[in-house]
């Protein structure tokens, strides 16, 4: 859980046997949103944030460069990203210490990294993920505080949590993402006419009054229900903000081009060719959503932690392969599993390519974005918690340095998350619990 130095309320409670420090209710933070300047003035270019996850890791000895700093040598498994090496920094050696808790395969590392708390199972997620904390801080002033997507189409394929087990519900197909972004409720920021209908005005005023109920209800419920109500009223507030934006003349978004039509309806599939295609369409829509000021934060899951990717005609998923496939004696690695990991990373290369291709004034969208890419393990066969792969791309509007390889053997992986928060200008004093708690970010990459 983040410690907000200035506004933290030091109230400790025992909840379900675990010590938890309850920070301010989500809604109170949102009420003091500092993300509005942009929508009002239209002058500043906003800094955006994204996460990108692929399942089942990589092979550390083919991934990690020997040298650190700016002149790190290209390695076989990073080659797929070589064209963008000046647009990202690489982090190696980081680990997820579990303080004696069992390593729950495909759960422990990914959630330790995201929330700073090592869960005992996937129902044990008390704290918000760092991407959600970033979204709270910088995600306001646009229609959607964050966009969650799963290219593999599983409705539980998500690693973003608002806390108290409230894991984000992802969009599963390009069409559903398109409809949410550019369907009813979308207003072209560059449209010549601006005239909010009376229904928007009224619906906004009706929703504004919803908060009046909150205090009375809050007093009558126990701790767990209180967190739930808080999340519910936060969602009401998000909707209210969406309507409020529709009442204001939008700031022009010069780089915004509204997609000309909806993508075809598709059924989610774990077939890697279908996933790759869905991912491309979702990335393209995300880029437009960022340029058209519909959102500033996104979470993309290319494949879930126990990767469900498969090739047509094969009985084995990527995850199954990581366990069953023999290490090829000549190659020194598992060729099929590695093929899936590499195909996944091609997806990340595509994301960087599209962000870099989108111009915003003198800079590119990638320059004004920070994308945190990671997996749930390093060597998947053993569900390793060491050498967790982390890549952070984009320059966060000049606050993040790219092109570097940073290596800290055995340091908690939460340090990379805190660094991302600081690069996004989020005032977090510390992040994580137990051995995952960190209070220092990696200064070498912060400008």
């Amino acid at each position, binding site marked *: 859980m983040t410690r907000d130095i200035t506004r933290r309320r030091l109230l400790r409670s025992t909840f379900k046997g675990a010590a938890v420090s309850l920070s301010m209710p989500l809604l109170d933070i949102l009420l003091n949103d500092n993300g509005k300047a942009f929508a009002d003035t239209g002058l500043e270019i906003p800094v955006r944030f994204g996460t990108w996850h692929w399942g089942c890791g990589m092979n550390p000895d083919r991934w990690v460069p020997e040298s650190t700093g700016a002149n790190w040598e290209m390695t076989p498994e990073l080659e797929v990203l070589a064209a963008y090496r000046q647009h990202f920094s690489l982090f190696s050696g980081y680990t997820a210490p579990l303080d004696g808790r069992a390593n729950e395969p495909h759960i422990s590392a990914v959630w330790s990294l995201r929330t700073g708390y090592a869960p005992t199972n996937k129902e044990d997620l008390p704290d918000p993920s760092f991407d959600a904390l970033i979204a709270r801080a910088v995600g306001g002033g646009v229609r959607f505080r964050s966009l969650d997507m799963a290219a593999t189409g599983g409705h539980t394929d998500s690693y973003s949590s608002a806390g108290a087990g409230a894991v*984000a519900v992802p969009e599963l197909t390009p069409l559903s993402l398109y409809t949410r972004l550019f369907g009813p409720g979308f207003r072209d920021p560059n449209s010549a006419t601006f005239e909010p209908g009376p*229904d928007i005005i009224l619906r906004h005023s009706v929703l504004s009054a919803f908060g009046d109920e909150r205090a*009375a209800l809050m*007093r009558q*419920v*126990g701790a767990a229900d209180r967190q739930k109500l808080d999340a519910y009223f936060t969602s009401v507030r998000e909707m209210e903000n969406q309507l409020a934006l529709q009442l204001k003349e939008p700031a022009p978004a010069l780089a915004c081009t509204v997609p000309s039509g909806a993508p075809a309806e598709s059924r989610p599939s774990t077939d890697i060719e279908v996933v790759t295609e869905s991912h491309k369409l979702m990335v393209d829509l995300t880029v437009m959503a960022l340029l058209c000021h519909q959102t500033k934060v996104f979470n993309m899951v290319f494949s879930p932690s126990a990767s469900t990717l498969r090739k*047509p005609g094969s*009985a084995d*998923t990527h995850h199954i392969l990581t366990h069953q496939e023999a290490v090829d004696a000549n190659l020194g690695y598992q060729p099929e599993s590695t093929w899936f990991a590499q195909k996944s990373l091609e997806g990340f290369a595509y994301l960087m390519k599209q962000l870099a291709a989108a111009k915003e004034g003198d800079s590119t969208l990638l320059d004004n974005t920070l994308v945190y890419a990671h997996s749930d393990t390093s060597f998947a066969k053993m569900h390793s918690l060491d050498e967790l792969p982390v890549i952070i791309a984009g320059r966060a509007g000049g606050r993040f340095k790219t092109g570097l390889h940073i290596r800290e053997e055995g340091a908690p992986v939460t340090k990379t998350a805190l660094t991302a928060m600081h690069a996004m200008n989020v005032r977090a004093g510390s992040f994580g619990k137990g051995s995952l708690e960190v209070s220092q970010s990696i200064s070498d990459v912060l400008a």
Partner: protein
Amino acid sequence: MATFKILECKSATTPRAWFAYLLLVVVVFLGNQAAMASTGHDDIVSLRRLTQEQYRQTIADIFGDDIEISARLEPDPRREGLIAIGTAQASVSASGFEQYDAAARQIAEQVTDLAHRELLIGCKPVNTQAADDRCARTFFSRAGRFLYRRALNEAELERFVGIARKGAKVGKDFYWGLSLSLSAMLETAPFLFRVERATWQGDGYRLDDYSTASRISFLIWNAPPDEALLSAAENGSLRTDNGLHREIDRLLASPRYEKGVRAFFNDMLALDDLLALQKDPTIYPRYSAKLASDAREQTLRTIVDTLLRRDQDYRAVFTTRHTFFSRALGFLYSEPVTSPSGWEARELAAGDPRAGILAQPAFLMAHSHPGRSSPTLRGKALRELILCQSVPAPPPNVDFALVQNVSDPNFATARQRLTAHNTEPMCVACHKLMDPLGLPLESFDGAAGMRMTENGAEIDLSGSLHNQSFIGAAGLGATLAKDGAAASCLINRLYSYGAGRAPEQQDSERIDAIYEQYAERGFNLTKLLRTIALSREFYSPPPVEISADQVAIQQGDKS
């Protein structure tokens, strides 16, 4: 476990002053003293988000099943084995609220449109182009009582009448205002969540009358209370043994009970997973999304047939030869289905290995890999879903190299591969819980196709459960049909499903007692449900945990 319980917070030193203050705060807040008389002494002990099915059923019950809801609703989360528990822990996400918003507006537009308003509004405005508080009030007090599953208090009623008034003035249309206000009501917490309130009675909580009514109707019908049940809550008759008996028996006798039974087993057996199931089409060309959804329907029909039509012991679902085929299923079973309705009742021949719900494609397909059967996944599902036992996750450094290596002729069958895998001591401990229950089902591939061999080798179908050995799916079904754990699991799940939480100590004692009560007589679903719905413990929720900062807030309220 150190927890703050409301019990402590309410001990002798504080309660009256605390309540008096709370009452005052809320009364001042709402500006209406009368509104608080009925609810001020209650605490909210749980908030249970409506499932997608409950949401749709509620709208159909109140406004008719021709009201369309095309919006996707928030997915139902599963916790501790049940969606009924998951929805008691879930909130509403930002994207979920957008979906509720879209659904609410779509519903409200239809309810107030020309085709429906006459029937559904129940009154006419003096002037359709102006506000009409009287008619709006009539509508919201009636519809609101069903939507909130309780009567609205005066402040709530005034709020919705007020929104309708404002909308009518702005839009110069009474129905437009009504629609605006109804869609707002459909987005409020008391509609989206089943708010369970309870009264502290010195030694524990007791659900209030309305919450009791909702528990009964969602347990038996998976739907909100109807007029008669709400009236029984309001006139106090649910507090009497006779009144409670009468209502429970009325609900169990209703045709709507069947929907409730389907909803329960859909939850217990995780059948909704079939709606998102994927299989590799090159390996299983017969598989389709339609086959998966028909398989789900087949299992539900079989359960309803066995437990309601034939009124048998619950465990007969594991052996019944009565089944139902759609066209897609007929193809899988090589039994042509010609009836125009698409569904035909069939009786399998004695000894047919496909008897019982575990040998049906729903179970077999859902608990397999996309391109391969899995005795381990099937065994695990059986332990968890049917026997209420949990199987630990595999250790992180496990080596699966042999399990799926089908190219080695020494490991042609899953049993051979698992036997080799289980020479590892760290694997065998858990696999012996799962594999002996899944291996007897190996005569069915990952898409439920029948087979005698795997990779050319004959399949050994022997298995065991609780030291009972048997052969094949039929042997597994027959063993489960006598198994105590399967029956006890049903009672556990029914109870948790109704209560929205895993059993605590007092509940477990009650569950054990119910098991003993029926052990000799057979486990008849309807009788079990009736016994649970009649037990006092079922309406006595445990104290809720409150956090230290909440105590601080409450103390702040008092100061």
